[in-house]
């Protein structure tokens, strides 16, 4: 047997190190469909507990929508369960192309290519399109999948301070000798919930002859007046060169992602992006469900309007109760606690008050920036948000954190 004791001991020690550092992640088993209220088994073997869920990316409440489920059933019946192939061999059905065209219309781009996930889209895009003659200039808080994608690409890597347009301009000036410059940002930053300054970014891109890449995974479907995304909100719809986004959050939440943008760049991905070339096609059942999602959200803005109002209501409740928040206008509302242990304890205590939330700390966020990331959904009813708020207040009082700012919170935990 090749799995020696030395190997076993090595990996046991590695896992022990992760536990000691307080970074060990444990899954919680959910016994119900994804929704604003879920049934959770935690720890393993414990009785199932009904919880208000405030940590899902189910922004529009469509993960369990009856029309989406019915469309998925119909897709399963008409196009089968799986493709048993990558797209370019025999994995492309008419509905794959139909969904790509619908996404192109929705996002206001020239063409779209589906990927198994947005992680794959980000991992594959840069290597497919840029070379060592080019430079990628990324916001320092972009998603980890973009960081991975940039590392796979031979183009020069550079970064600018989060949303600092002066720093970005300096970098664009510094790299004028490169063939292509690509500015890379999230539309909505997943940990802080703030929006990229896309209008300013597009202006700088035009001034310094750069392309703009936006990962809009935490925005597609609900940011902007008709939910098209951060580019709509910022008034630059149709002016973004590349948008990557996901079907795994607001758009039904199953899986799948895409690269959408200038048609030549999309075609380069079809020819060269390895996660696209070497992964199976997105399953027909998911494509059928996603088509229904796009129909639902293109017809009216009711869900994104309710989400906006829910997020505003929730932010107001937290503020009034004396929590320290990251300012923003998205449904991601981070409750700042700064200390990793406090964030973990706080989340555990919330669970026992029947509210499901998760603490985030280094290395997911910077050291000293630990928080509970709350995420609001159009599926939340006000009574559920009120219930969750009572739990937050009770736990907040228990830890003595209400009314405290960063300095006081850090002093309290002795940091």
């Amino acid at each position: 047997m090749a799995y020696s004791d030395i190997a076993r001991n090595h990996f046991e020690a590695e896992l022990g190190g992760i536990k000691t550092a307080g970074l060990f992640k444990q899954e919680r088993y959910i016994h119900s469909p994804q929704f604003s209220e879920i049934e959770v088994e935690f720890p393993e073997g414990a009785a199932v507990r009904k919880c208000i869920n405030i940590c899902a990316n189910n922004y529009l409440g469509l993960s369990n929508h009856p029309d989406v489920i019915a469309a998925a059933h119909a897709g399963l019946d008409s196009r089968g369960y799986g493709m048993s192939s990558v797209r370019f061999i025999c994995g492309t059905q008419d509905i794959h192309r139909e969904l790509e065209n619908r996404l192109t219309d929705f996002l206001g781009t020239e063409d779209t290519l589906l990927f198994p996930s947005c992680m794959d889209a980000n991992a594959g895009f840069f290597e497919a399109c840029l070379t060592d003659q080019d430079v990628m200039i990324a916001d320092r808080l972009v998603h980890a999948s973009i960081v991975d994608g940039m590392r796979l690409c031979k183009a020069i890597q550079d970064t600018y301070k989060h949303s600092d347009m002066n720093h970005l301009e300096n970098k664009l000036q510094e790299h004028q000798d490169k063939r292509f410059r690509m500015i890379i940002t999230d539309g909505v930053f997943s940990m802080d919930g703030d929006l990229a300054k896309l209008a300013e970014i597009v202006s700088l891109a035009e001034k310094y002859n750069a392309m703009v890449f936006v990962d809009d995974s935490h925005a597609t479907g609900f940011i902007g007046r008709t939910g098209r995304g951060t580019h709509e909100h910022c008034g630059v719809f149709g002016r973004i060169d590349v948008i990557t986004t996901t079907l795994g959050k607001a758009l039904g939440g199953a899986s799948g992602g895409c690269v959408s943008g200038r048609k030549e760049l999309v075609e380069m991905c079809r020819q060269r992006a390895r996660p696209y070339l070497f992964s199976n096609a997105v399953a027909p059942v998911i494509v059928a469900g996603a088509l229904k999602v796009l129909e639902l959200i293109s017809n009216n803005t009711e869900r994104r309007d309710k989400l906006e109002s829910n997020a505003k209501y929730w932010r107001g409740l937290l503020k009034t109760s004396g929590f320290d928040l990251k300012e923003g206008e998205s449904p991601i509302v981070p409750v700042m606690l700064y200390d990793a242990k406090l964030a973990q304890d706080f989340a555990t205590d919330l669970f026992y008050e029947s509210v499901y939330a998760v603490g985030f700390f280094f290395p997911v966020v910077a050291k000293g920036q630990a928080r509970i990331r709350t995420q609001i959904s159009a599926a939340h009813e006000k009574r559920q948000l009120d219930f969750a708020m009572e739990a937050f207040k009770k736990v907040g009082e228990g830890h003595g954190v209400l009314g405290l700012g960063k300095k006081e919170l850090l002093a309290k935990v002795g940091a």
Partner: protein
Amino acid sequence: MDELSQLIHDYVIKEYLEEGSDQEIGESTPLITSGIVDSFSMVSLKRFLEKKCSIRIPDEDATPAAFDTIQNIARLVRRFQAQQVGV
């Protein structure tokens, strides 16, 4: 702080700290392990040193440990400067 360490210090302050930050950085302040500089952003520091000091630092030598303090970075730069002139 000698001239080289000062050069690195000034770049770190300008490139990585938020404007108006009152954080003090000395020669032995951890940069990577403290989270002031992440490994993703470290590449601009490497490129700055290569350009300013006319050296080439191979990727395998640009480790988080080698870039963790101003002291370590200065040591690394001197090593490659010495190799360059064949000392």
